[in-house]
């Protein structure tokens, strides 16, 4: 078992917002705690109470902006002038050997339809698709040599989320909860803010796999009722309260008949927490305390429907950060086109998607910074793969897992740096190649978790998010 050094830190304003009873997670049965699989947790530990990290964390929370479908690196952040020069040529001649693609419908070399400019002091190249995010160039660490093992959505989604292309493994947010517990006991430790699209592979992208159900992602909507079973069925609150009071009396009365009653006591306490959660969740979604200026910053007043949806998601993400939720993932708004998956009509599709996310993301970065939250919140922008520098058919691009761009900001990451490179076509990573496991290792590292030591025994192996791989990208860390 590894040693966790406890780090004393002062109570912040944020912690005052975080309530402390027992939350979405909580006390496991004694039987479970006696299990060697849980060797990482001392007996009697509440699985969701905060736990000291392996070393000093740089980030307390992660906001993972999941760009479902695979945004094109060469049309967003990975500027490749050579494409323009060879536009319309046969890629087999211009580029050379091509890897098999998903749809096997290889067209011509296709230049980006968007102009690129340099932004900030760092001079990051950003295309005209991201005018708002471009203003924050100096906050971004570009990761331009990302790779995946899969060129099919579902396997690639599982890989991005769980480090394995196979269905049913724990999602990264679940691993974070398992490693660190939660700072807020009245909200889940891993919240997925659903913009309307559930990625291919479904909810298993956010599941806890072989980790206890405690750690699974809770999918929240940002309109209407946020999550299932959070709204009492009783017509009036006092009817429920009265029921719960009677329940507590009956349960406490029966406690003696169980001998070792630890599990029962926990289950009794869970009801009190559940009761509090019924108000914590609606409170999260209540924007009355937000100023009009803030809402505007995120794009609440935008004309594009997708922008408004994603603006709500981004604002809730900030509010979740304030409430101490460790891992927040945003999925994309539904709309015309097919996610970021532009097998055809690249121009229309990418413009639509960018319009949805650009301003809200910029608003989020700015708002987090203004409130002093950015330095301890890691924001990650990522798709499951990128797209080919040659066309699929006439005007689309196929999946490309061999080299694509993600970026990170805040939370202990250097702004304005660029790490890794693809070849001159933006096709394959050739320098400082990054694997998905490296992204995971780095995220865990920033939270203070040593990825090789955060293990869970299942099926005869000490399983890790990073499997047997993963290198922390030290070059981009502060």
């Amino acid at each position, binding site marked *: 078992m590894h040693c966790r050094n406890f780090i004393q830190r002062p109570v912040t304003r944020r912690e005052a917002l975080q309530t402390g009873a027992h*939350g*979405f997670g*909580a006390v496991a*049965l004694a*039987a479970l705690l006696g*299990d060697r699989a849980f060797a990482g947790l001392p007996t009697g530990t509440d699985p969701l109470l905060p736990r000291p990290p392996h070393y000093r964390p740089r980030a307390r929370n992660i906001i993972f902006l999941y760009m479902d479908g695979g945004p094109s690196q060469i049309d967003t952040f990975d500027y490749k002038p050579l494409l323009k020069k060879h536009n319309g040529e046969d890629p087999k001649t211009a580029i050379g050997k091509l890897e*098999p693609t*998903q*749809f096997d419908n290889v067209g011509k070399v296709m230049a980006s339809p968007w102009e690129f400019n340099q932004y900030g002091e760092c001079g990051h190249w950003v295309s005209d698709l991201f005018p708002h995010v471009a203003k924050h160039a100096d906050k971004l660490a570009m990761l331009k040599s990302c790779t995946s093992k899969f060129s*099919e959505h*579902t*396997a690639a989604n599982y890989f991005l989320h769980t480090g394995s292309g*196979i*269905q*049913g493994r724990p999602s990264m947010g679940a691993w974070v909860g398992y490693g660190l517990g939660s700072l807020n006991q009245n909200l*889940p430790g891993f919240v997925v803010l659903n913009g309307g699209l*559930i*990625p291919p*592979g*479904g*909810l*298993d992208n956010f599941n806890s*796999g072989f*980790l*206890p*159900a405690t750690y*699974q992602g809770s999918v929240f*909507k940002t309109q209407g009722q946020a999550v299932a*079973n*959070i709204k009492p*069925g009783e017509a009036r609150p006092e*009817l429920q309260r*009265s*029921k*719960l009071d*009677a*329940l507590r*009396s*009956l349960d406490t*009365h029966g406690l003696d*008949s*169980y*001998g*070792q009653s630890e*599990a029962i006591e*926990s*289950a009794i306490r*869970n*009801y009190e927490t*559940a009761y509090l959660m019924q108000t914590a969740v609606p409170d999260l979604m209540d924007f009355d305390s937000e100023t009009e200026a803030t809402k505007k910053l995120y794009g609440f007043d935008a004309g594009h429907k997708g922008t408004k949806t994603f603006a709500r998601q981004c604002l809730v993400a900030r509010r979740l950060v304030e409430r101490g939720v460790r891992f927040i993932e945003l999925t994309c708004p539904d709309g015309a086109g097919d996610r970021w998956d532009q097998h055809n009509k690249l121009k229309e599709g990418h413009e639509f998607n960018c319009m949805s996310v650009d301003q809200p993301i910029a608003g989020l970065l700015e708002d987090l910074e203004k409130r002093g939250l950015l330095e301890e919140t890691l924001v990650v922008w990522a798709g499951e793969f990128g797209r080919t520098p040659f066309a699929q058919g006439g005007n689309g691009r196929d999946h490309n897992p*061999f080299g694509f761009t993600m970026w990170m900001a805040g939370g202990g990451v250097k702004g304005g740096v660029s790490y890794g490179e693809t070849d001159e076509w933006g096709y*394959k990573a*050739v*320098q*400082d*190649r990054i694997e998905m496991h490296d992204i995971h290792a780095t995220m865990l590292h920033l939270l203070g978790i040593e990825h090789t030591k955060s293990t869970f025994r299942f*099926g*005869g*192996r*000490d399983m890790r998010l990073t499997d047997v791989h993963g290198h922390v990208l030290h070059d981009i860390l502060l």
Partner: protein
Amino acid sequence: MPVLRSIPAFLGCLIAAGPVGAEPSAADLEFFEKKVRPLLAAQCYECHSVDSKKLKADLLLDSRAAILRGGDSGPSIVPGKPDESLLIETVRYTNVNLQMPPKTRLSDDQVADLERWVAMGAPWPDEAPPEPGGNREYFDLEARRDSHWCWQPVADVEPPPVEDKSWPLEPLDHFILAGLEEAGLKPAPDADRRTWIRRVSFDLRGLPPTPEEVNAFLDDNSPEAYAEVVDAYLTSDDYGVKWGRHWLDLVRYAESYGHEFDYDIPEAWKYRDYVVKAFNEDVPHDRMIREAIAGDLLPDPRVDESTGLNESITATGFWWLGEATHAPTDVRGDEAVRIDNQVDVFSKSFLGLTVSCARCHDHKFDAISDEDYYSLTGYLQSSRRALAPRDPGGAIAAGATELRQLQERATALAAGPPAPSDRARSPEQLWGFDGSSPAGWMREGEAFPEKPTGGEKLEVALLPATTNHVPAGVWHSGLHGAPLHGTLRSPTFTLKKPELHVRLAATGRVRARIVVDGYFMDEFNALLFNGLELKGKGIDTNGAWQWKRFAGRLHKYVGHRVHLEFIDEGDGYIAIDEIAYAKGAEEMPLVPIADPDALAPVMEQAQAVWKRMPAPDYVLAMTDGTPENDRLHIRGGHQNLGEELPRRFLTALGGGAIPETGSGRLELAEEVTSPENPLTARVQANRIWHHLTGRGLVPTVDDFGVMGEEPSHPELLDWLAARFVESGWSNKQLIRSIVLSRTYRMSCIPHPELTAGQIAEKDPTNEKLHAFRVKRLTSESIRDAILAVSGRLDPKLGGPPVGVHLTSFMEGRGRPKAGPLDGAGRRSLYTAVRRNFLPPFHLAFDYPIPFSTMGRRSNSNVPAQSLVLMNDPFVAAEAERWARQLLTEPDPAKRLTMAYATAFSRDLQAPERSMLDEFLDRQAGLHGTSRDDLRVWSDLAHLLFNKKEFIFIR
């Protein structure tokens, strides 16, 4: 063998600088020292030298001999030939599966230097290679086997003596009591009878006992009272529902494939029904395992008495219940992943071993080599997925026999001109047929006759007059008429050309497919497999002989292992004349029958037979394909193959080579269930103990290996395993002996003389069972108990699943049709198991995600569960239903008694009665109604569903 692999390391010292043709020149050596050695040191030695902390790919690059020897993938260079050198291919970064250094491509100059160095003949100074460090992995299978308990034979043990001879009821109690006495502990007193019957009812049936059952048991003072309850429960159908589900947890049972579109797994529910029935009939456990592994091959398949259907073949469906994806760009890789999951489920479920851990390297801890792993994968490569037609009571076969005679008569009646057997053949023929059975072809169902037509004369098929003359050398699914079902499969072969042609005659509901590397999802989504299936208009020749072409994406699969499938779905026919890489001459006209009227009486008789014949019942199954061995996948890479490995069972369990006549699964099944195998019986005995007592004697029920936990009571485990085998592997008998034991009868409150301190010191985790363990119900039992109590439970067994009730939170591709909130009142087992739409109620209570074997569910205890019971509309609706039921009793006091008897199998205590009285008053006040109002009693019913006693069983 990995041990062999490491021997050349020592040989390396002997052959020193290796076979250099001529002595390298000083200039060559200087080039090496200046350009190559520093490059190797800087870029490669972190992972490929004697000083590497962890040696990768078993490859050293720090001496010439080591480079020539190479690593897992073979020699690194061919001196003088850069283009044939693995090292050069790797640094060129042209093969995405083989790129080094892993992170950053070398500069063009650096690559050129290495190319030049290899072209020079790889000059290296004459120096002693560095001393091998301690970083090579050694693997000694025998030593591992000899040193770990699980591989040892089941010991012949006797129940140990105990001091308190009055305590044991069953021999197994001696083991538990001896353990307690040794620790100075006393067993808990017996639980009261109500507690016991509630416990045993949930454990055997997954349902609460009815108040009538409880009362009958309380009134029965005979010594047989306990046994009578147990026997009644074991013979109830609900036993199979409960224990079948435990088995389904092992085989990652689901009814859809998950991934992007969550397509249906065809006929999956029939497998579920097979399992329930097998448990209810107490089919010997070794037999169930044999059926699972090789039910299609057993000489004595079990047949259902009422339907006359083959049950044993249904059992093989378990191999195919895994997830599946619809567009793998690497279809062989997809097969490797699928087989890995099959091996994983097989070895964990039946052997309690994690064989899959040996896919990329020898097992890190257990006596399982990577060669063992690839010796097992061969069985699966030699087998195929099939929708197998089952013949109800042999009625189809009987009809086919009659039809054969009719067809012979028809041939005799309408004897035509000689068969044109000398028709022009394709020069690139793969298969043509004569009257004999061609080697390696497999058939299912009755449509395709045992062999193609032969002989001198045209045969006559029982078909419409224009198409019924059949030449010799044709395999014809309509010979005995259009209504027969059947499938014909070719041997597996390596595809050599991008097109494949078949001369055939076909019409109706028939298909022809090329199956690549066992891949089957193209039937749902042909994205990457267009052109590999002929169906509908693409195959219908209206009975004429034509060449049909497989093309499209087939070119992608040249070099892959493929087989052909011809499927007749019972309405039409397909006749195959010739299969070739290029089509041959077209001419093969239909030969009309001179006097069709002569056939009329025969056709009339055939009509009667067809009418009588039932349709086959399809199940998802495994059948034998072409026997083939797998090759070692070096470091788990299917593109990096090592030696061929004959199919055999695990070395540590005495695996021997198997005959070449079939897949070998039947022999494998025998070895798995052999009495010599110490694992299989132990694993099942331990699973039963786990389910009944809340914890296995080996808590890691799916892993008996080094990473698992050691048994708490090894002698008891062996004693139970031996009795289990003696009883003929009867699950029911083992369960019976455990639930009738004194151990199982214990209260969960420890013996009054035991102090908290003693317990904390001697048995803090209750491993020794000083008291019975409190168990939380499974998700299914919680829901089923709610239905049972509310009166909604429909005890019906089997059949297609009831749709999952969908909330607005359950979204995504492949969203199924929503089912009713109450699941039609059926037991939870019958709710659809769709991978991407698992029921949230069940997930909250640790229902397993079906990706691999899950013999022990996790057991969480979280507020999300409280929220489900508090706010899920299903719970509220059933509470109201129950309240209506309660209100039929006019006396409120009796109502409460009824409610407690139904929900908790007991009467209320006085304080509880007053608490609830107070509650009823309060709710009536809040609702502004009388105490007898439905809303008030719905609140009470809802409250009781939320009481901990409802889900925690003492």
